[in-house]
């Protein structure tokens, strides 16, 4: 439905946006306000304000334990914040049950995959679909009511599985998939429901680079067909390659925002997260010496963590 230009519009809109944390976006799909969640006194998430632009791919990055997954959990109703409200497409979703969040169009994947082990891959996929009348107890009894939709779902599932290189596995139990295959299934399943916003939690961790590369095209296609994407990822190549906007979290807070190139050039981000040497060859023996540069970076990061209360 959304023509190409809508996406282009959204991307170019972003160019105008200031690169300060918590900045307002021209056309925000998700707006979070004052969302806080602490575990035993430690603030895992403490987001003053965050907006996610519609029709673009936003990357959420940050050091381990920054609160990215927890933020996802909060947004999607899997955890309750201590305080905070958020709007999705103008509707407040705070306190709404996880399943309702998903039906509202905000679908997430799990970092630690949740494959439905004793169901086949294809069934896993079908379960992701929406609007299947057969999922109602009473209509389920009358096959003609849901059979056409089921066929459509199956077709869609098969084409996704092909893309994700899982088609040969379609009749295997999901529990027998390898770690990376589970990641792929997790993501493919989320895409079954044509969400308005898909939130991917480290979708490519453990996925073979060649396959990752081919899937990036799929993600940009998704965006181009109108889906907004918010993903957490530690693979900077991927972030750089497909994201239109990058949000950096550290210790629960949004510390930086901006287009990928700019954010990755940000010294604070480099210090706290990227490290200056992620493109150096680690095979270099010089790096192994005591007190080498990498050690220094680790120190710096640890220091940065210390400084924050």
């Amino acid at each position: 439905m959304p023509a190409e230009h809508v996406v282009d519009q959204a991307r170019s809109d972003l160019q105008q946006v200031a690169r300060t944390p918590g900045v307002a976006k021209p056309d925000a799909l998700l707006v979070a306000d004052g969302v806080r969640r602490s575990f035993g006194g430690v603030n895992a998430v403490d987001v003053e304000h965050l907006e996610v632009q519609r029709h673009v791919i936003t990357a959420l990055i940050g050091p381990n334990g920054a609160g990215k997954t927890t933020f996802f959990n909060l947004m999607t109703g899997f955890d309750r914040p201590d305080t905070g409200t958020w709007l999705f497409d103008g509707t407040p979703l705070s306190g709404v049950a996880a399943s309702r969040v998903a039906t509202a169009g905000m679908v997430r994947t799990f970092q630690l995959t949740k494959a439905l082990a004793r169901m086949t891959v294809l069934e896993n996929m079908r379960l992701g679909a929406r609007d299947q009348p057969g999922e109602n107890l009473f209509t389920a009894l009358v096959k003609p009511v849901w059979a056409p939709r089921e066929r459509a779902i199956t077709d869609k599932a098969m084409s996704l599985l092909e893309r994700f290189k899982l088609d040969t596995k379609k009749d295997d139990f999901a529990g027998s998939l390898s770690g990376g295959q589970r990641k792929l299934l997790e993501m493919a399943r989320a895409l079954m429901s044509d969400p308005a916003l898909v939130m991917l939690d480290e979708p490519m961790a453990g996925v073979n680079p060649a396959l990752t590369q081919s899937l990036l095209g799929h993600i940009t296609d998704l965006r181009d067909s109108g889906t907004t994407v918010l993903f957490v990822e530690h693979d900077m190549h991927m972030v750089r390659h497909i994201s239109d906007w990058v949000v950096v979290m550290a210790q629960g807070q949004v510390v930086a925002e901006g287009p990928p190139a700019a954010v990755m050039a940000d010294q604070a981000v480099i210090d706290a997260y990227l490290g200056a040497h992620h493109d150096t060859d680690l095979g270099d023996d010089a790096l192994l010496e005591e007190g080498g540069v990498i050690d220094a970076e680790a120190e710096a990061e640890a220091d940065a963590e210390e400084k924050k209360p």
Partner: protein
Amino acid sequence: MTETTAPVVHRGAPAGEPLLHADDLVAGYLPGVNILEGCSLVLHPGELVGIIGPNGAGKSTLLKALFGLVGIRSGRLTLQGDDITNLRADALVRRGVGFVPQSNNVFPSLTIEENLQMGVFQTPQKFHERLEVVLHLFPELVKRRKQRAGALSGGERQMVAMARALMPEPSVLLLDEPSAGLSPVRQDEAFLRTRRINKAGVSVVIVEQNARRALQICDRAYVLDQGRNAYSGRGRELMHDPKVIELYLGTLATDVDAARDAEAPPAPRAEPRSGDTAR
């Protein structure tokens, strides 16, 4: 360079008696379905060997088979010349083999410290001494020693898993995607740490999807596909082998590097600092 792509097993392996030798392993989970269909691997003392390959190739299965967690149906596995085919995992641990699984690699209801304690279950007297050393490697764990591992973030778990494997001072270390889920800095650290450990005399087998990094640090690598050895060779050779790149490595990293190089100047380097206490 072209000859490295030929499916010759153990290309580039040093001569001599291997430490760990897997010969033509056949293994699988379900009866009648073989996942490994004749997989071979040698690990010489002090080597760092990488395994890469597409998802579902059987890399994790191979590691599990080496570690006695998956039944070997045929083939032979030796450690220092002794047959260890289908030897139970705890016996292997006693013989100095350590293993970090790909997923579910911490004990969620135990605290971090207890997780580490489990690492030296067989040699409890070493606990305090090793705890010092390992916590020094993972300073971010120190503050959270008493926290349950089940509450940790994905990356934090990964660190705990790695730390636990290092607790007993293994002489052979089997790592299954140790860098997955770690932030870039931590990934670099993890690889470097692996190399350091290796340089300190530990033989390492590392399975990685962060293939470029893995190939950068390892002495030799195997490419696995569909339960069989597809390629093998020295890490760097494989990294630049066009077929390997096409099939397994992808060009994302290089593409972007090129694009970035064209776009912006490289980020300034941080000043190296002294006073380092890391091992």
